[in-house]
């Protein structure tokens, strides 16, 4: 679901195809019939934006099924590996009882006057969602999560939900946290009483009963009414999925941005997680939820975040909206006492040492005072609104193309208000030439003379002309070696940023201003050892990966072998705790390994590259064994307890000598607080969460909301769309009202095998443009007939933001849906085209809006409304 794997990740799709040859069933749930559908055993068509209704239906089907209710395997998972028995606060009120709104909804009042662009239309105080007797703060604990929640990866609580209460500025009731290092006392001070539980699962306030009630109305009939998928087809999917789950069988979900690009994307993924925990499909081979990410190293750029909200390894970015004034306050706010995240002080102090080295001392909080703080949501969408308001003066644009991005006309208008723009790319793409070749310039509506932006274009080296590592979708680092020198003035990305840094270091060298001190002390020397390399001006990528991996502060030649060696006293230096172990000795770059398993003995392929964490290929793999530590079945054997240690085909994801019979220490912190049977060690309670008491801002349970723009009323609740979604009310960013007759059609956007993103890396390439030369819109024969459109006619597609032209591709791959008794037509468009390149076409993203999910600020490109008519 949420992915067209055969089209967009075709080489990875070879493996589901091989599984199919071995008898596996492939189910494709998707609004369109695609290359993936063509290879699937079942294609279930659903209306774009109705995924939670479909998944919720599956949850309800499972909970009602006699086999699921009688088999010990499922019972063990529910009682021992999930949070089903835990009791939730009596203040909690479910969306089912409040017409689509959970308890705690407030008018949004967060943020600081310096940054009023956070976009919330409402906000929740999540206090009532917590386990009974454990509530401590306004929105609960903020620890970073490890589960992937959409394309941005894990999200902390957003930086301003309940912010005023949490900032604690001037609040005398909030005592200063215990100082450190050591920070053990601080961690211990965060200890909460363990959640109360009901092992009979009968208490009406236990998670299990709440979940059951929440999904009771998600019946097969309701699924058909909301999604348009016929009831019988839905039941076939449900039966197949349950049949293929159990001790001997596992099922996996695969998704991509068709699950993230919604105003409730993380909740869609969360619903799949809920279902997979119920089915025992986590931490086991052939199980789980696979995020198919879209770029070569998008996983790496999330782990090593060129993202505003986090610092290395999913630690929350210091923020003025949280109680983060000192290191101790930051640690008290970001650490949890139980589970593996109790080690957060070690991760953070080691990170600060990688920033400021010897200048980071115990006495100055390891330089924490120099670290910048965020002021609110500085993500893509609000930054372009800020730019349009002239709050942003300069932009460094390195390998991205916003002139073709969300509400592209608005983003181009905003770029024209910059004082300076630096583009570093392989191709002179639309964002480099927006002042010259954009449609509004060509039409004369905007004159280049009126655009006062100073623009730079730096040509880039290509992949084979650079050395370094990518982190692929499976969290695996793979090193690519340099095969050739780049031509002319083309330079690697590393060269550019290193040279910029060196120049800035020189410019600030003589400053005496206090605010420049942190930058002056910042460690930024990665010069290669060899003079021949040094002369080229770039850094040594190995030195950089070594700093990411970490070493003993006193002896950088002593590399750290894993995050278990990290200390909170400054004696270890490590930029990214999750990457610790990739470079365990100065001559061992494990990302560069290229050793496959011997033929006939294929296992975890542990000698090919290196996967974080700890070269582990399946996370939470303690769950692949039963309570006693035995494999659930011979067929699905992966990691097990051999009597003295955890072992198996993978790096075990558990304290290696912690016996399955170990009891949780009620006074313990960290891993001691979890028993030998609790596999989800990054969670505070070691359990898979069916109900999410903390960490999400839009509710503890997935709930069907309509997209921000929809032709139909929400059939399940009075609440139409998420009450806390983000919307930036701004010139050129209007939304259509529900059922607006001017925009009756649903549109979804997508990618093709032969192109990449907005085309910068494919529309300059003659081979690829020959394969897919021209923009098109897929239209069902029914809609074509209704609008008088024939195949290959030019048609106009208009949204409240813009209008684009494309050639009609009339095809039965698209079909109308009957939603709540009303016929809804849907069209689909790829968004690869723009006004530069060997082939050009209209910018489809001009149609989209700045509207986003409240957890991760990802826009809603997968479902909005338009009008399709003959051009």
């Amino acid at each position, binding site marked *: 679901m949420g992915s067209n794997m055969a089209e967009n990740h075709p*080489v990875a799709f*070879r493996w589901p195809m091989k599984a199919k040859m071995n008898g596996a069933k492939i189910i494709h749930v998707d609004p369109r019939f695609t290359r993936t559908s063509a290879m699937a055993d079942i294609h279930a068509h659903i209306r774009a934006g109705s995924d939670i209704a479909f998944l919720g239906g599956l949850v309800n089907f499972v909970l009602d099924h006699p086999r699921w209710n009688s088999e010990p395997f499922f019972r063990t998972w529910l009682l021992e590996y999930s949070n089903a028995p835990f009791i939730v606060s009596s203040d909690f009120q479910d969306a089912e009882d409040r017409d689509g709104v959970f308890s705690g909804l407030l008018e949004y009042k967060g943020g600081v006057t310096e940054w009023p662009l956070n976009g919330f239309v409402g906000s929740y105080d999540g206090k009532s969602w917590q386990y009974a007797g454990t509530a401590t703060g306004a929105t609960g604990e903020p620890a970073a999560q490890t589960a992937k929640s959409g394309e941005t990866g894990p999200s902390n609580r957003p930086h301003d939900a309940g912010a005023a209460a949490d900032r604690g500025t001037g609040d005398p009731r909030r005592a200063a946290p215990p100082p450190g290092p050591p920070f053990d006392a601080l961690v211990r001070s965060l200890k909460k009483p363990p959640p109360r539980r009901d092992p009979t699962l009968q208490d009406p306030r236990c998670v299990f009963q709440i979940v059951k009630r929440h999904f009771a109305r998600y019946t097969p009939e309701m699924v058909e009414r909301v999604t348009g998928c016929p009831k019988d087809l839905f039941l076939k999917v449900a039966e197949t999925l349950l049949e293929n789950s159990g001790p001997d069988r596992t099922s996996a979900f695969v998704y991509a941005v068709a699950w993230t690009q919604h105003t409730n994307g993380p909740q869609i993924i969360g619903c799949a997680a809920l279902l997979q925990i119920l089915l025992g499909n986590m931490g086991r081979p052939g199980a789980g939820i696979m995020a198919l990410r*879209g*770029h070569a*190293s*998008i996983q790496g*750029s*999330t782990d090593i*975040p*060129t*993202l*505003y909200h986090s610092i290395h390894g999913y630690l929350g970015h210091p923020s*003025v909206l949280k109680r983060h004034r000192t290191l101790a306050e930051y640690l008290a706010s970001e650490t949890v006492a139980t589970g593996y995240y109790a080690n957060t002080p070690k991760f953070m102090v080691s990170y600060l040492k990688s*920033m400021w080295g010897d200048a980071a001392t115990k006495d100055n909080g390891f330089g924490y005072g120099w670290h*910048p703080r*965020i*002021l609110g949501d*500085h993500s*893509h969408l609000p*930054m372009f609104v800020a730019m349009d308001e002239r709050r*942003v*003066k*300069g932009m460094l*644009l*390195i390998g*991205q193309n916003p002139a073709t991005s969300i509400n592209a006309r608005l983003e181009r208008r905003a770029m024209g208000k910059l*004082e*300076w723009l630096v583009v570093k790319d*392989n191709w002179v793409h639309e964002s*480099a030439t927006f002042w*010259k070749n954009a449609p509004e310039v060509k039409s004369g509506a905007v004159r280049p003379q009126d655009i*006062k932006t*100073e*623009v*730079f274009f*730096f*040509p880039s080296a*290509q992949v*084979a002309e650079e050395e370094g590592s990518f*982190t692929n979708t*499976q969290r695996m680092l793979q090193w*690519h070696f340099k*095969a*050739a020198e780049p031509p*002319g003035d083309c330079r690697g990305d*590393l060269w550019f940023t290193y040279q*910029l840094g060196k*120049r800035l270091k020189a410019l600030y060298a003589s400053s005496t201003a206090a*605010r420049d001190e942190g930058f002056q002390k910042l460690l*930024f020397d990665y010069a290669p050892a060899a003079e021949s390399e040094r002369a080229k001006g770039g*850094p040594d*990528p190995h030195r950089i990966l070594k700093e990411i991996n970490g070493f003993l502060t006193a002896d950088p030649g002593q590399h750290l072998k894993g995050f278990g060696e990290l200390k909170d006293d400054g004696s270890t230096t490590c*930029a*990214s705790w999750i990457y610790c172990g990739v470079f365990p000795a100065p001559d061992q770059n494990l990302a560069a390994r290229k050793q*496959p398993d011997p033929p006939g003995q294929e296992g975890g*392929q542990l000698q090919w590259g290196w996967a974080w964490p700890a070269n582990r290929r399946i996370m939470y793999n303690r769950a692949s064994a039963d309570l006693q530590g035995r494999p659930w079945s011979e067929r699905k054997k992966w990691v097990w307890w051999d009597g003295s240690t955890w072992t198996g085909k993978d790096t075990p994801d558990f304290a290696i000598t912690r016996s399955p019979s170990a009891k949780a220490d009620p006074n313990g912190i960290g891993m001691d607080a979890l028993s030998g049977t609790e596999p989800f060690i990054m969670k505070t309670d070691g359990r898979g969460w069916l109900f999410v008491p903390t960490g999400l801002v839009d509710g503890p349970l997935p709930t069907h909301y309509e997209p921000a723009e929809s032709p139909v009323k929400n059939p399940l609740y009075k609440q139409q769309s998420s009450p806390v979604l983000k919307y930036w009310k701004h010139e050129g960013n209007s939304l259509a009202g529900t059922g607006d007759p001017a925009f009756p059609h649903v549109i979804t956007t997508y990618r093709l095998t*032969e*192109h990449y993103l907005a085309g910068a890396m*494919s529309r300059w*390439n003659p081979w690829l443009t020959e394969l897919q030369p021209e923009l098109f819109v897929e239209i069902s024969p029914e809609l074509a007939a209704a609008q008088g459109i024939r195949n290959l006619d030019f048609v106009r597609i208009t949204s409240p933001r813009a209008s684009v032209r494309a050639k009609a591709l009339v095809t039965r791959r698209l079909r109308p849906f009957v939603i709540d008794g009303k016929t809804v037509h849907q069209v689909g468009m790829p968004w690869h085209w723009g006004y530069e390149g060997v082939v050009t076409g209209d910018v489809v993203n001009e149609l989209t809006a700045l509207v986003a999910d409240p957890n991760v600020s990802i826009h809603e490109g997968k479902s909005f409304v338009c009008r399709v008519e003959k051009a």
Partner: protein
Amino acid sequence: MTVSRRDFLKISGASGGALGGLSALGATLAPALARAQELRIKEAKTTPSVCPYCSVGCATLVHTVEGKIVNIEGDPRSPHNEGTLCPKGAATYQLHVNPNRPTQVLHRAPGATDWEVWDLDRAMSRVAELVKKTRDETFIERLPDGTPVNATTAIFSLGGATLDNEWNHIHQKLLRGLGIVAIENQARI
């Protein structure tokens, strides 16, 4: 003889059809093409790399002759792709060897209607000056209530998901060191 598949198609087209093309090249075309492919990389140096497009991480082999890239293909050792590549991965060669590829630094002055070619060093120095100027003019040390900020929101860095981990590391480190907090990449959208 070095005839690529595309050259072959051109020849076929010019000769007015498939038969014409075949006769123009001789009857034993398939083995000849196979040999051409082999010859192309026979003396080449092989360097392992990774496909730069989607996130699957297909391993590739880059063939160079005297420092020039002559071929890029799938690495048969890889447990992910076992030597195969999709159309984009198979076209990685054209990312590198392509007449459309820009190799000069360009500068557009405010209000100008066209580019000007600039010296790389001059452009780098100018960018460093602009970053410093904007940072210094917009830096916020504290909120009115005394909360430390140490940041500017007036500089925005965008991009990074097709770029190396090592770049992501030094880029975010440099910017955070300067107090530039608005850092984003494709993962957000």
